[in-house]
């Protein structure tokens, strides 16, 4: 296939996806599909940001929930309209921030705040290797959560109370647009010289160093960029949920994102995107029926009751982790060439 035709097909596919997201809002505005698409998009961004770190740079970090929390809080704190601040910060006399930021600016600020924290925490933590890094970042996320709930910061973070009434996005296309732009930036980064350096570090640190790659600087860069996008993802999650509370950002959230990355394939951007939509669709929608008691005639199917969905779901995840270790995409990306090749192979097979 020629490069121009390929690009046209890619652009057409992208436009088709946006068009579909637009149509869905009109046809079925309150359906499960909308929920899945929105939440899936948010998780796709966070999963890709985690993949940048875990899959492309080989840094096993479990701090994603912490960075998302920072992003979500930053967004919420700065965009609550001044008129309703009194009611949100009921226990803290209206809080101390008395202005409202533009939504897009606040989202960027959410990323920046997460990135600054990542830079600071990265200075000491990135000296650690593999599982120690994982535990240290997990610990960092827990500290952030404890601080966000602390009374002393109540005037800013509203203590352990909900932050709410901030502006939200009202159609799915907007979610898709923001997420697509962020993922495109990450993809471009991965294809740049920096991305190649990241992969070199992942494959062999010592060899990469010998080739003149500044290990500390590149790891720091990857960590900060990943946190930046996790922060934006956190802001989007806040928008999706319409309320924010620190308690939701537990380590379980990081684990879920990690499992999405694994299901999609470690080291594949399109894999992470597919993985997150699949994960959210399964956990929120397709397996829902397992939570309801079901009757075939008068016979009640055993085991079906609240919570069974998640049991089945985690068994599926374990099967993927154990037997399909490469996930959906492995470390490959979605490409027309591969699909075309697949068809050609089939066609050849038919001829024989």
């Amino acid at each position: 296939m020629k490069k121009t035709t390929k690009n046209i097909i890619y652009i057409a596919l992208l436009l088709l996806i946006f068009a579909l997201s637009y149509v869905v809002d009109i046809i079925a505005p309150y359906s499960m599909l909308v929920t899945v698409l929105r939440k899936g998009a948010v998780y796709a961004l966070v999963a890709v940001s985690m993949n940048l770190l875990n899959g492309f740079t080989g840094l096993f970090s479990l701090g994603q929930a912490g960075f998302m929390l920072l992003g979500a809080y930053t967004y919420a704190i700065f965009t609550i309209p001044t008129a309703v601040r009194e009611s949100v910060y009921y226990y803290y006399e209206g809080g101390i921030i008395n202005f409202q930021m533009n939504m897009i600016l606040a989202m960027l600020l959410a990323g920046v705040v997460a990135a600054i924290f990542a830079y600071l925490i990265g200075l000491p933590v990135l000296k650690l290797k593999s599982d120690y890094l994982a535990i240290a970042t997990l610990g960092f996320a827990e500290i952030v959560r404890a601080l966000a709930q602390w009374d002393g910061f109540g005037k800013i973070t509203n203590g352990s109370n909900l932050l709410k009434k901030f502006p939200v996005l009202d159609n799915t296309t907007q979610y898709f647009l923001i997420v697509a732009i962020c993922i495109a930036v990450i993809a471009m980064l991965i294809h740049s010289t920096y991305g190649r350096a990241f992969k070199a570090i992942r494959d062999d640190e010592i060899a990469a160093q010998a080739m003149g790659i500044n290990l500390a600087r590149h790891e720091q860069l990857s960590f900060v960029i990943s946190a930046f996008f996790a922060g934006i993802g956190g802001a989007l999650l806040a928008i999706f949920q319409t309320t924010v509370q620190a308690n939701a950002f537990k380590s379980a959230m990081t684990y879920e994102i990690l499992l999405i990355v694994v299901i999609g394939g470690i080291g594949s951007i399109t894999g992470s995107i597919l993985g997150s939509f699949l994960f959210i669709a399964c956990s929120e929608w397709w397996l829902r029926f397992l939570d309801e008691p079901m009757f075939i005639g008068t016979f009640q199917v055993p085991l079906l009751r609240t919570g069974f969905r998640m049991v089945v779901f985690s068994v599926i995840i374990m099967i993927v982790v154990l037997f399909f270790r490469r996930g959906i995409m492995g470390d490959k990306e979605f490409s027309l060439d591969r699909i075309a090749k697949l068809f050609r192979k089939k066609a050849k097979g038919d001829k024989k």
Partner: protein
Amino acid sequence: MDFIAKYLPYLLAGISVGGQYALIAIGYTMVYGILRLINFAHADIFMVAGFIMVYASASMPIYLSIPLVIVLTVVLGFVVERVAYKPLRSAPRMSVMISAIGVSYLLQNTAWYVTGGLAKVYPTIPWISDTVTFMGCTTKRVTFITPVLTILLVVILVLLIKYTKIGIAMRAVSKDFETSQLMGIKINTVISMTFIIGSFLAAVGSLLYFSNYATVTPTIGAMPGLKAFVAAVFGGIGSIPGAVIGAFIIGICENFIKAAGLTTFSDAFTFALLIVVLIVKPNGIFGESTSEKV
């Protein structure tokens, strides 16, 4: 005297919870020593032990349910290793860790399903749940039993590792996985044994821990689990005495922070300590230093 009256309860609580962390921490440190794996599922095995006790004691007398809890927990630990970790023996370390996270997710969701997500009241075990008065402060008897039992179990374990055949095998495997295999050590038996011992101690730990805290929920394992892990790192991962000392230090510090009125930070402190330890002395107090080879 006022000083003692004020701080003694916190010190006692600290020692007691430290002992419980120690029992969990040994499971982490032994598995890490041999497989180089952070067994994220260990905290959930501890949680499941709590639930087994809740259900067992509802249908049988306490002297039967305690051994049953221990046996079932050990079986669970053994099965988890065989099903989730053994097939990944030659896989990269990250896959095994992800598998451990998967198991933890599965155990939590299963517990949620079985219990309906409600907190269950832990049965009172006669004698050890009784209240006693010590130097003017009232506490449960379990507070005093925990440190004694912990130290006793640790001494037995250390002797076991030092003098028995399986103990020597364990030490050999943790030193060099492949060479010990060449020397005819049955790796799988050794690894299973490690998980059995770890789960046994976690079961004992859960009996003591929940006698003090009274309710069990599906996610209750996470916090003590993480703290026990920090204790293991603090003491030098792979070292049993290190893990125990680390656990007592963390338990006591945590309770004194509570005494100072900073309850919110008692959890954050543990992790701050972890990060500081990892940076200042990554091998912990008693850990062996390792160098990276090309």
